[in-house]
């Protein structure tokens, strides 16, 4: 950061570039697949030409799926960035406090009972909310609400969910096991209604941005933040609820997609900015783009076999992140 004014301009430019890249990634996702859609046909479809041969394919399958991937990637990256400030821990990700474990137990219980559809999503969401409240109540229980207490409580609750997940998997018949594994790895093939995800992402980002400058102060420590006039307890509670809700919605829609919430915020800090007013929207956009591309590759690389997108996020993310980490030390 050479000059803050310059930084302001360059960050607006950067966010603009990311928005355009996001649109490009969506177009790429919509055009790519077992049936490629050519550019002029794609334009016609997007402009509403119902007579185009691939109209149904694009508007009812690929576009909803791409938008869902966009929203989930954004929500997970945003939730991860918030969790890392809340817990003051670089290893924090959206799942660290057990929200995903609770969601998985809810979802797998539905699958084990032979229920699908709304039961599956409802079970996942209820499980996630239950876990959020449980961790909150246990942390709140006695005295101070410190990041360390929250972290320990969340990690232990997450371990508890992990044991229940293993139990359910071991009790399940082979026929349902494959569906369960896919859910656990993250899967976007069922995506059909992107509205909820996109709406949650936009709303969550706006709420997070209101506190963005407070987060810049909070990273300097709780005491300093208090001394600079920040209601730290209320801010932490807001962060916890917001990050948990974003995670719960993302998981309910797309299952347990790993890795994005951990590495995208770090990647954004490394290459973009650590000012949360830029970091939060940039993380959300990079996470969104990342998941759209990963999902497109997951359904095309070994076509007609579709890989769980969670496998793809890690396969791309690990080397990319390690490369950037190494480069940043020079």
């Amino acid at each position, binding site marked *: 950061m050479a000059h803050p004014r310059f930084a302001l301009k360059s960050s607006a430019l950067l966010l603009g570039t990311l928005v355009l890249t996001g649109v490009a990634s969506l177009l790429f996702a919509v055009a790519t697949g077992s049936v490629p859609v050519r550019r002029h046909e794609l334009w016609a479809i997007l402009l509403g030409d119902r007579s185009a041969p691939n109209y149904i394919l694009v508007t009812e399958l690929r576009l909803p799926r791409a938008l869902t991937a966009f929203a989930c990637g954004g929500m997970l990256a945003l939730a991860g960035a918030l969790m890392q400030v809340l817990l003051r821990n670089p290893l924090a990700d959206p799942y660290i406090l057990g929200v995903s474990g609770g969601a998985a137990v809810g979802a797998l219980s539905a699958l084990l009972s032979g229920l699908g559809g709304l039961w599956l999503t409802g079970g996942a969401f209820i499980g996630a909310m239950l876990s959020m409240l449980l961790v909150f109540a246990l942390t709140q229980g006695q005295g101070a609400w410190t990041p360390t207490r929250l972290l320990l409580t969340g990690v232990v609750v997450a371990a508890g969910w992990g044991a229940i997940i293993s139990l359910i998997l071991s009790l399940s018949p082979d026929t349902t096991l494959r569906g369960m594994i896919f859910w656990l790895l993250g899967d976007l093939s069922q995506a059909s209604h992107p509205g909820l995800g996109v709406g949650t992402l936009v709303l969550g980002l706006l709420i997070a941005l209101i506190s963005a400058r407070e987060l810049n*102060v909070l990273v300097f420590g709780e005491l300093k933040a208090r001394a600079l006039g920040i209601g730290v307890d209320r801010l932490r509670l807001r962060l916890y609820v917001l990050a948990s809700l974003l995670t719960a919605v993302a998981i309910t829609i797309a299952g347990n997609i790993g890795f994005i919430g951990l590495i995208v915020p770090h990647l954004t800090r490394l290459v973009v900015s650590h000012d949360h007013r830029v970091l939060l929207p940039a993380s959300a956009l990079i996470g969104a783009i990342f998941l759209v591309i990963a999902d497109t590759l997951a359904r095309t690389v070994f076509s007609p076999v579709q890989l769980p997108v969670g496998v793809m996020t890690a396969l791309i993310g690990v080397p990319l992140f390690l490369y950037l980490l190494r480069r940043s030390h020079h």
Partner: protein
Amino acid sequence: MSALLAIHRLEISIAGNRICRGLDLQIDCGSRWAVLGRNGCGKTTLLKTLAGLHPRDAGEITLSGEDLDTIPRARLARMLGILFQEQDTAFPGTVLEAALIGRHPHLAPWRRETESDIELARSALAQVGLANLESRILSTLSGGERQRLAIAALLTQDSELCLLDEPSTHLDLYHQIHTLRILRESTHSGDKALVMVLHDVNLAARFCDHALLLIDPETLLHGPTREVLTEENLFKAYGYPIRRLATEQGEIFSPAWND
């Protein structure tokens, strides 16, 4: 001079240990107070109490005539700033950004820092001698540079009352004197006051006009520096003989060398 901070029958404790009882004190605009006492006697806790960051057992504190407890946190942060003993720099950031967080209480949530905020931060950095390090990453700073940066952030906060917990720690001799001079100058306009925890009696005598000496919870001596910092009082406070020597540079405090 008017009272900026008034303390009435203050009683505080930490972890069940009493730190002070029945303390009455008035800090006027334009004054500079030194707080002295042995390790663990509660200087930091006293400072945090004055900043509203530590609960008190009894007594009242008023800032500019208002009860400390009723002032909203954000407004309080515009009136009162505090320098902590330890500087926490776990997350990355630049020197200028760290200085700019002092402007946080002055800005509405949706507003960005303006040119004048940036100017204030830059001039504070220049005062503490960090002007050419403004784009350095915090983790690459030395201990003394970090301390001076924290002081620059406090100057950027531009509060009427500044509480400083050991402002001279980690600083070399030149920067100790230079930094305390800057702090002293900040009170010359007459609308600000300083309360500094210091371990160096000489710095206290040189840069402060008032002193608060914590001897035990029942005995807190306060008043003009010359009257409080006597050989007898200092012996009571530190349990070690300290000589007040007249030199051509004025009076100098030195521990008695009896080995």
